[in-house]
């Protein structure tokens, strides 16, 4: 797989180490940028658009004005000692962020080479060894950048590191097929089996997603199906029962996980100049999560919840 390394690069929003909820053991999770879905409860809004974006954190600004000089588009201005930002002028070049030592301006998304990412992933090999952990590519949608994802996973695998992806599954078949051979575990979200509701809640049809799940199931690559339990979308026994029933038919299914919705991304939306549509939602309580878990378990599959 070495031929895919070197020149391949991807847009990465974050590399999170000591990640323990993105697959087995201690892992490093690489978050890539760009996602075809628009789930209104998304907690990684910085990973939706494929290109790098500027995030503004006004409470960190010290009013030095260096960004005004740095920006070729005139997107920044100082008025009455306060920083003003006109996002419509911003091209996402990142020059201002480089001069902002107060970290009030921070780029979401950075172009990184696969080699660079692999080097960082391999720094924690000692921890993967004792814990059975490894690398997970998440997002965003890792299969939106299939060459990059494949290159990183292939190199990690070559180094003896367990590889995983977290995908929404809404991708062309060939992209999934390109990555599966270098992937030890696929974690795939299924939000709902109701086609209309799926389109309303995520902006896309669920057909391709279900097709991807079947493809992984047939490939034999271990598969974990996950459902973020979101109020008004799928927080009913019927809804979860339907997804679990589908999951139970997937040959390589390892387990089904119910992930309790938490809105933890409020400040990220504001930093990107976006509204947060799920700000008012309340996380499901323990009783409901237990009930949904029990409903799913009736399909004779391993079920857990957070």
């Amino acid at each position, binding site marked *: 797989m070495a031929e895919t390394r070197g020149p391949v690069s991807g847009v990465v929003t974050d590399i999170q180490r*000591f990640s*323990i*909820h993105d697959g087995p*053991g*201690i892992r490093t999770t690489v978050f890539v940028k760009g996602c075809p879905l628009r789930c209104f409860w998304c907690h990684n809004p910085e990973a939706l658009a494929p290109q790098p974006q500027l995030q503004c954190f006004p409470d960190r600004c010290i009013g030095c004005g260096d960004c005004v000089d740095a920006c070729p588009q005139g997107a920044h201005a100082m008025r009455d000692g306060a920083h003003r930002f006109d996002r419509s002028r911003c091209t996402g070049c990142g020059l201002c962020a480089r001069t902002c030592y107060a*970290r009030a301006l921070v780029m979401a998304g950075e172009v990184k080479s696969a080699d660079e990412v692999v080097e960082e992933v391999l720094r*924690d090999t000692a*921890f993967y060894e004792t814990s059975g952990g490894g690398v997970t590519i998440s997002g965003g949608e890792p299969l939106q950048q299939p060459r990059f994802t494949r290159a990183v996973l292939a190199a990690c695998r070559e180094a003896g590191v367990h590889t995983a992806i977290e995908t929404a599954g809404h991708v062309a078949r060939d992209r999934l097929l390109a990555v599966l051979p270098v992937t030890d575990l696929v974690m795939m979200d299924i939000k709902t089996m109701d086609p209309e509701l799926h389109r309303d809640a995520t902006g896309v049809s669920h057909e391709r997603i279900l097709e991807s799940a079947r493809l992984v199931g047939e490939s034999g690559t271990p598969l974990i199906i996950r459902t973020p339990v979101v109020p008004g979308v799928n927080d009913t026994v019927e809804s979860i029962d339907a997804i679990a029933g589908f999951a139970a038919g997937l040959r390589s299914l390892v387990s089904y996980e119910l992930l309790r919705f938490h809105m933890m991304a409020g400040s990220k939306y504001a930093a990107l100049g976006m509204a947060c549509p799920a700000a008012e939602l309340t996380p499901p309580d323990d009783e409901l999560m237990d009930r949904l878990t029990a409903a799913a378990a009736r399909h004779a599959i391993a079920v857990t919840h957070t």
Partner: protein
Amino acid sequence: MTATSTLYETRIKALRATKLEHTEEKLARYGSFDVDDHGYIPWTEPIAFEPVSSHPSGGCWGMKDIGESFRRWLEVHPVYIHPQSAIAGAWVYKGIPGVAGFELAEGMGAPDSPKEREARTLANYPRNWRPEDRPTHLYEKLVAYNTYSPGIGHPNHFGPDMTIGLSLGWGGLLEKVRRYRGLNSPAEGAADTTFYDGEENLILGMQAWIRRHVDHARAMARLEDDEATRENLETIAQINEHLVHGAPRTFREAIQFLGWFQCIDRMWALGGALGQIDELLRPWYEADTGSGRETDESIIWQLASLFFNDSHYSQIGGQGPDGRDLTSRMSFLVLEAMHRIRIPVNVALRVHDGMDRSLLRKALEFMAADGTGVDFALSGGLDEGFMRNGYPAGLARMRAKVGCNWTALPGTEYGSQDGTRLCLATPLLLAIDDALAADPPAPDVATMDALWQRYVHHLGLAVATVKAGKDIHMERQADNYPEIVLNLFCHGPIERGLDASAGGLDIIDLAFDGIGLATTADSFAAIEQRVTQEKKLSLAELRRHLEDDFESAEPVRLMLATVRRYGSGGSRADEWARRIAELWTSLVRDTPTERGHWTCMPGLFSHGATSGFGRLLGATPNGRRAGAPVSHSANPDPGFVPGGGVALTAKANAVASTQSHWGNTTPLQVEIDTGLMNGMGGTDAVADFIMAHNRQGGTLINMNIVRKEDVIEAHEDPASHPDLMIRVTGYSAYFSSLSREYRQPIVDRIIAGG
């Protein structure tokens, strides 16, 4: 729950309640205290005592005067028995008033209280020594290098072998002292018997003190209405009546003996260790539970009583010299007792590759429930390092954690550890001065080379000064501040008639700890990037900003602070950290001390002294303001990951990359959020994390599992969480008992997330 176990549970709760009351009283009396919340009880009544002195100043130094004073002190020392404890005894003051430099005045503050720190100047350093013996000729250099803790005159920083005391008892120890006095000075009056006389006096004082507790226990029993409590007090009287002379025969007598040892060990020198406590007590446990004398519940209560008595350091788990895992039922009961009493206790779990994982898991489960618990001494780095000195694996495995950061062979190894700290950042500020004073000034391209050369020069001089101090320590300690307590529990001192610091012990490795690695490495990286590469400012401008403490230059300060930092991995700061750590190791280890040819053992450990050293240090090129704390041991500063986060694995890698590998420690400090620990797979992940750091050659992990919100609340209002316990560094303490400046770096670490 049976009636018996309810009784023990009630007793443990009573001990815990009293501990909290005592801590509250101590806080009201002394203000904050930035050390372990030792088991001494607050005492307000005057104690009629006058030490013996043969020194013109009226001070009390040397074995003869000290032995006699110690005996007199024990003869008048208050008696204390908590009616719900399994054992008698407690100490009331830190140090013996008027002896070896401790204040004579009643109501002295706890050591390391702000009052004490203020008083701690080099002008009378070390205060435990006669004025004429103090190394005044070194003061100037020690001040120049911000080395107010050069380790001269530090007592008790090694570990006893308590099997000696447990097998002989006080009577047996007395006989041993008298026998060797006879052997080593057969003709009466023909030789100096001061050493033995001092030890004899200590034991006689001890026996008198125990006898008074026997009477006190009986008097309390007579007045006691509750039958179970009365019986308990009568039992305390009986076991102590035996222990005046006899060696312990039962588990409870062994615990009582250890309790007495803890009292005199602390009141003498504030140090304190018991060694491998599970293995030490296992034979008594097996015998007494086998015969039906004790149950696991009564054993837990007795262990909790020992922890109430004092927070001495001890170890569980680990390996025997043959490599077999030492985990036993006793190891689990020690954890259980810590969990039940939930007060600061200093037990380390020794981690090795083939260990019983269920013990590690149990320790973590209790930590998640209690916030803090054991710390983790790692054989991976400790054994390998110690063996590089030429010692066999069996010996390395026998070392036990006997202090905040240190590990020693019980009763055999003199390390003088944890008292010697040297600031790694101060030489850099002096190097900058040198580079700017050069004529002609060094051209910019050569600045880093020039700076490094001057840094090597200054750090070398600082190390040499401290080594000169080590020679003086070894020459004069026994005559000033002898190891009168630990000599009794070591292999050699009594047999030879020589103090542990003066030939009594065979293995000598004088520990030496660097402090502020991240501050220094990040500073080098900031200069390299902003001054020499990007040329954002000149070295002279940088120095001006440092002198002005970044006054009106916040953008400059932030520019310096946002260079990729040590810990982020693969950065220039990581390179500088490794280079500095290697230099440190080489300077400390490669050459022995000049006069005594003592080997020194390098490590990177700050204790809680980050504030103390920081207060005396000007602003640094990493954007740290003057007087702010320096970085903690070899840990990266909070927020070291690009973007301001913390990754535990990155932190562990950084600390592993800067280990000295000679058997001293360079601890890893981590704070873990309770939510993460309690979430799915959290305990296993943390256990795997510990095992991985052990394999990396790590030496010690100090860990807190806390709710961030609790710590922030307790920082603002300490009274809101009076029982919140925190592992400050190698020791546990009530968070509310720490001064604000000690709490601040802990809060910063926790807010940064690890």
